């Protein structure tokens, strides 16, 4: 972490950057939050550790409006989102100084809590400079040792890789964290009967409180005005008056980001109700890959997305599996 801070101080000193978009310490040891740092002095609150899962790409939409150059810290998976935003002209590449930072898997405090660990006061071992093998969870009831891997976010088990897709310079090493099958969850649902599928989603979606956290965090959901807030479809939020947006929200949201979603997993990470929202996005990704050829949104900033493209002999809807 010190390496990053020193480098940022250097960049400030050289006048190459006007501010930094990074993470600052939260009120708890495991909830750092995205923040702008306007000077080298402000960096005292800067943090980059295993809990910095937040994808900063979307914040750069705001950052693009600022004067001068903003240094933005992006993990390998975040760079896909950033590229996608470049492609959609939502961020100004010229105003970004992208520091690609290494990643050894990001942590999920909910996973630790799910192990039955309560009363957490501090967590040690989440420093990116460490070996990231073990966490010491200090609780009101004594210390607990947890394997780093077991506390990782779902998305890190299906990591897209250590490569940054877009950057100006790179700092820190990354580690391989891939040990799962990205589409296993989707396949498990596909194997269910329609009744079981419906029951599964009914159960999950019934938890939704429409807090819009998924939408607000999603780098693909970057619309100035969301369609759910628009009167153009009679779909604007009228609490409990019109159930349309309530019932269809997640399907429509997933459709709107289909072909643009980089599978960054932020939606599932931030859902306060723990709904596995990535299962919607990943279904579209899996279908797109199978039906129209492998496509990774954000791999570059030029290629046409699968929903703004076609071939003359695309399969028919009736041939879907």
């Amino acid at each position, binding site marked *: 972490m010190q390496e990053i801070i020193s480098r940022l101080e250097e960049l400030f000193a050289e006048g190459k950057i006007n501010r930094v978009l990074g993470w600052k310490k939260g009120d708890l040891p495991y909830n750092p939050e995205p923040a702008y740092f306007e000077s080298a002095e402000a960096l005292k609150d800067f943090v980059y550790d295993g809990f910095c899962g937040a994808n900063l790409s979307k914040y750069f939409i705001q950052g693009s409006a600022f004067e001068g150059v903003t240094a933005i810290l992006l993990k390998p998976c975040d760079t896909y989102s950033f590229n996608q935003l470049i492609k959609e002209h939502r961020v100004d590449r010229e105003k970004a100084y992208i520091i690609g930072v290494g990643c050894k898997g990001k942590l999920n405090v909910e996973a630790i809590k799910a192990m039955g660990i309560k009363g957490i006061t501090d967590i040690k071992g989440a420093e990116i400079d460490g070996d990231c093998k073990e966490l010491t969870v200090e609780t009101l009831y004594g210390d607990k040792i947890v394997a780093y891997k077991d506390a990782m976010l779902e998305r890190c088990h299906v990591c897209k890789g250590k490569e940054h897709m877009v950057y100006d310079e790179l700092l820190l090493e990354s580690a391989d964290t891939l040990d799962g099958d990205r589409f296993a969850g989707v396949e498990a649902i*596909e194997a269910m009967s329609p009744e079981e599928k419906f029951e599964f989603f*009914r159960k999950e979606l019934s938890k939704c409180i429409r807090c819009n956290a998924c939408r607000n965090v999603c780098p693909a959901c970057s619309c100035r005005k969301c369609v759910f807030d628009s009167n153009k479809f009679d779909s604007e939020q009228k609490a409990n008056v019109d159930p*349309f947006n309530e019932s269809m929200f997640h399907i429509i949201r*997933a459709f709107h980001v289909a072909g643009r979603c980089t599978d960054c997993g932020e939606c599932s990470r931030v859902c306060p109700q723990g709904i596995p929202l990535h299962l919607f996005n990943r279904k*579209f990704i899996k279908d797109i890959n199978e*039906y*129209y050829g492998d496509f990774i949104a954000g791999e570059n900033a030029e290629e046409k997305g699968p929903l703004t493209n076609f071939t003359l002999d*695309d399969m028919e809807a009736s041939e879907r599996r």
Partner: protein
Amino acid sequence: MSIKGEEFRPQIVAFCCNWCSYAGADLAGSSRLAYPADVKIIRVPCSCRVNPMFILRAFEKGADGVIICGCHPGDCHYSTGNYYARRRMTLLFSMLDYVGIERGRTRVEWVSAAEGVKFSQTMNEFVETIRGLGKNVRLGDLRCKK
């Protein structure tokens, strides 16, 4: 065909493109090729005008089946519209399968202006399928909050 008190009468929305399928429906009409009155057509300029929102809205408002009809691939009045529609509908319907909606409730069919017979047959088949599936309860509200 008479309206019997107990018989299930599905609510079916058919989106038809103006240039081919709507004309195909007109031909079915002028050829007196009957299909059930359960089918109501909404005219759109092109199948690519059909927003997934419209389809989900129909289901939410109580439709039991939704069918999209457009020009055959290669014959689109706007040259490429139905190709986009094909991808969109394939992915949307696949998603609906995935959340447990009965597969038969959604359909895409390419009907040319000359295919009155096909239009009528397709609608007869589709209504038959939906009658077999019964009332759409699942897509009314996925969250099933009463």
